[in-house]
């Protein structure tokens, strides 16, 4: 189990979190410290970039990482379990990274700069964090499942990727706008059903991927 977890962290979490951190640092430094508005636009897109990276690295893990691990003698149950654990850890790390990045302009006294309102909302109100976490988890679950679909049915995989992107863009927008809406309607801005649907979809994708890992054939 420990070997699988280490392998997953190396192949999925470290690259996804590392590139996200690099993106956050560059957009922060150039957008605020360097005062280039162009990079401030990038900065506000950070949650979507994190979603892209988590999705892509999860897909790459199922298309090549699983085979590599199994070919080196990994136990299938350990690999499936570490995927769930690794994706949850990835979610926590990336939510923390996004929120901390959102707090930097205020901490650094760059509040005179414009166009970072969306990220500011994320930093001041924790109500959007669970939604953000669910979107990040869903990105990894859907990414892993899309990778799996690509192995057997490339077209289906591409369709899932396209559908997910349309959904993810909307969900990230909803997540970061929750605090703004909540200021006007303090009583829950989003129906619980939405959280349940997103959580349910994440679990479904993870279950399907885990089931596949248990029967996967290394080629």
């Amino acid at each position: 189990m420990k070997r699988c977890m280490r392998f997953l962290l190396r192949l999925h979490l470290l690259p996804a979190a590392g590139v996200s951190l690099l993106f956050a640092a560059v957009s922060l430094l150039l957008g605020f410290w360097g005062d280039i508005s162009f990079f401030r636009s990038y900065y506000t897109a950070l949650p979507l970039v994190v979603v892209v990276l988590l999705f892509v690295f999860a897909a790459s893990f199922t298309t090549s990482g699983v085979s590599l691990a199994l070919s080196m003698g990994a136990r299938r149950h350990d690999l499936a379990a570490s995927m769930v654990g690794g994706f949850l850890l990835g979610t926590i790390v990336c939510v923390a990274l996004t929120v901390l990045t959102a707090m930097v302009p205020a901490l650094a006294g760059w509040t005179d700069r414009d166009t970072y309102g969306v990220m500011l909302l994320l930093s001041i109100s924790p109500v959007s964090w669970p939604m953000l976490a669910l979107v990040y988890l869903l990105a990894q679950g859907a990414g892993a499942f899309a990778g799996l679909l690509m192995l057997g049915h490339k077209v289906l995989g591409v369709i899932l990727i396209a559908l997910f992107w349309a959904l993810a863009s909307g969900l990230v927008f909803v997540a970061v706008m929750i605090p703004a809406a909540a200021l006007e309607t303090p009583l829950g801005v989003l129906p619980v059903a939405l959280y349940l649907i997103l959580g349910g979809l994440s679990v479904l994708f993870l279950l399907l991927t885990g089931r596949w890992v248990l029967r996967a054939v290394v080629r």
Partner: protein
Amino acid sequence: MMNETGVLKAEGVCKSYGQNTVLSGLDLTIQPGKIYGLIGRNGAGKTTLLGILTAQNTMDAGAVTYDGQPVWENQWALDHLCFSRELQATLVSGQNAQRVKQYLRAAEDFLPHWDGDYARRLLEEFQLDPKKKIFQLSKGQMSMVTILIALASRAPITILDEPVAGLDVVMRERFYRLLLEDYGQTGRTFIVSTHIIEEAASVFEDVIILDQGRILENCPTEELVAQFAYLTGREDEVDLACRGLQVLSTQQMGRRKTCAVRGEPAALSAAAGAGDVDLVPMNLQKVFVALCGHGDEL
């Protein structure tokens, strides 16, 4: 009851891909401390069999055990096996952009007997750049990575699938030397699947011949080769000499006839001495063709 220490065993293994039956009721025993050669025609099921032996592939029926314990989902058993597969330049997601060092790190993560120092020495000996991506490697270099992982794994049972594919003759000789050196030092079991039969024949202590999903032979190479020969001479003399022997194929040129035959070595010698016929021994490659040629013999 047979001592099963270090024995890898497959019993009644069946595997189909859709309507295509690849292995049917296959039984195989791999004894510890030997170098096995696994030979078979394209599509005979070699890679499928090796995948099933190491739990990298599923099976429809049967059982695979190591040391008497099931291999499937058994980390202890899996830790004793290493199946170093042929690397692929392209994956379903596109080019195989993983770097050599990522493969080596994965091997380090998962293979408990991994010898990092030996891996580095082999990396230098093969002049492989660990930063290179797999799709940037030549076919021969990919084979070198496969060999490196297999040898440095130090696994008690190490399996190589087509390790010399794409290697030039100098590298192939170097591989056989490394294999024998390792075997001399560790005495571990190797299973090497190959199509370059004659070159590797002297390395194989035992040979396994797989044909149409079943094991035709699993015995010491010299013992097997000694049972096969060509008998050549006048037709009536050859026919006479062939009595009591298994005739695998015949070829007639005018009044001269050549038969590929199988029998006990003593029976072969006796057949040759009985009349005016020539006895020409076969090499392993000829034996393989005689057994699996299905009409393409001689």
